[in-house]
């Protein structure tokens, strides 16, 4: 028999990932030797200033970017390209296809991903849209929706597929502050209810602590690991509490200390 993995089975696992970008002046290293893993139901947040390559890492996990070296595994299979087992929620509002209604947008990945019966696709779509509170705009076109509703629909589109891991690239960054905190709360409720595994990218420290059960801090140019933190003990009720404030400050210092700026790797 094969030896068992000493850790619980990882849903996704990024091992010594290095990403390069071609540029007119030669290749530029965007991400250097970054490793992390997340188990079932964990929410891992990549946090760092712009230029730390956090979005590039997410794009690599989605399969849009090929690693220069290192491996990415989702449920043990190496990522070779994009696929509907890893649905991405982007920051941009135009991620909903404007020629499809909200319902058709959410059904689209189901049609692509699995040979489900029409009635089942319909039922699952309606149930998921109800979960994100969009049951009243099922047959509206995206251009008639507000920014918050568009992001809700995009989240529904990711949830409906039962994907192995949901990838979210600053999904709330383009929203106003009120809608943002509302959607953060709704995402947490959904995570509690459904227990999905999430890879979330943000540059907001508070959002990272709230959403994540694990933080992975990155330094810029190129992106290197500063440290990993466990934040599973924080809930929405901690907003404004001294405990969260002090952790925020600690994370802030870690991100912006001279050592982090120089990008010296320090694995924890």
């Amino acid at each position, binding site marked *: 028999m094969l030896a068992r993995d000493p850790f619980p089975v990882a849903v996704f696992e990024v091992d010594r990932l290095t990403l390069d970008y071609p540029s007119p002046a030669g290749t530029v290293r965007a991400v250097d030797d970054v490793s992390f893993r997340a188990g079932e139901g964990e929410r891992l947040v990549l946090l760092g200033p712009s230029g730390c390559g956090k979005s590039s890492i997410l794009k690599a996990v989605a399969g849009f970017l090929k690693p220069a070296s290192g491996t990415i595994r989702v449920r043990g299979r190496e990522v070779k390209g994009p*696929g509907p087992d890893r649905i*991405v929620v*982007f920051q941009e509002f*135009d991620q909903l*296809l404007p020629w499809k209604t909200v319902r058709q947008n959410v059904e689209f*990945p189901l049609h692509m991903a699995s040979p489900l019966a029409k009635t089942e696709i319909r039922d699952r779509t309606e149930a998921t849209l109800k979960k994100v509170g969009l049951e009243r705009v099922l047959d509206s076109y995206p251009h008639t929706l507000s920014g918050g509703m568009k992001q809700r629909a995009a989240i529904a589109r990711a949830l409906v597929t039962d994907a192995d891991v949901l990838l979210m690239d600053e999904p709330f960054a383009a929203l106003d502050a009120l809608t943002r905190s509302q959607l953060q709360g709704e995402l947490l409720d959904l995570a509690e209810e459904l227990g999905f595994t999430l890879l979330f990218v943000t540059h907001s420290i508070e959002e990272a602590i709230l959403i994540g059960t694990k933080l992975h801090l990155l330094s810029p140019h190129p992106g290197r690991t500063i440290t990993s933190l466990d934040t599973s003990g924080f809930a929405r009720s901690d907003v404004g509490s001294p405990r969260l404030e002090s952790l925020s400050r600690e994370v802030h210092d870690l991100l912006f200390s001279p050592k982090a700026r120089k990008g010296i790797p320090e694995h924890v």
Partner: protein
Amino acid sequence: MSDLSLVGTPAKSQVLDRLRDFARNSALLRKVLVLALLALIWEFSARFSAKPILFPTFTATMAALWEALTTENLLTASWTSLTVLLKGYVMAIAAAFAIVSLAVVSRFVRELLQTLISMFNPLPAIALLPLAMLWFGLGERSLLVVLVHAVLWPFALATLSGFESVPETQRLVGRNYGLNGPGYVWRILIPAALPSILYGMKIAWAFAWRTLIAAELVFGVSSSTGGLGWFIFRNRNELFTDKVFAGLAMVIIIGLVVEGVVFRLIENVTVRRWGMQR
């Protein structure tokens, strides 16, 4: 004061208001007004110049149009032109879609297409007619060659630039679902680029008309029945200027109908409905 007068005639003012709203908001009404104004200017300037053999009036042209429609088979001639036009148009659009779709996948094909477009797009289709006649003789095939040339390049250019300006996020969404090749073009690129594609189709439609009428003028009879261009040419030879104008009016009317009804309808159920174009 004004309140008092309003109280006196509520029903009447309401009707007037509704009429005014309708007049302001109805695109059809605006269009009809513009056309009526142009016809009026035409009528007066023709009467003022008073040379009916060179510049017939609007009313004389309409009378000639009616006569041509009822007694001289103008409708058949228009239909002859239209069928040739549609054949060439559809062939060229299909070919353009095929090449542009390949250009999306292969960088080499894209380079090839871009070079071909910059070579052939400035070349007037009518300039190819002598060569086409040499190769394919006097007949529909020559007409189709110049038509395809007239439609293919401008439409391919519009479609290619439409594909290239599809938002990055929508491309990634398509790839995220595992779409590639023809499925990706069909399900993501074509709908996302539809505003540009429709624009290209409109431009190409106008180019096709110009080319066909010009070719028929040069070439006379394309089959046993002549087309619209031939109708115009024949009547010019006999100095029936009002009928020449009637033929030109027919070209314009068909253009207006296709632009204002066919393309408008397609836009209303697609890009306007989806909020991709206002």
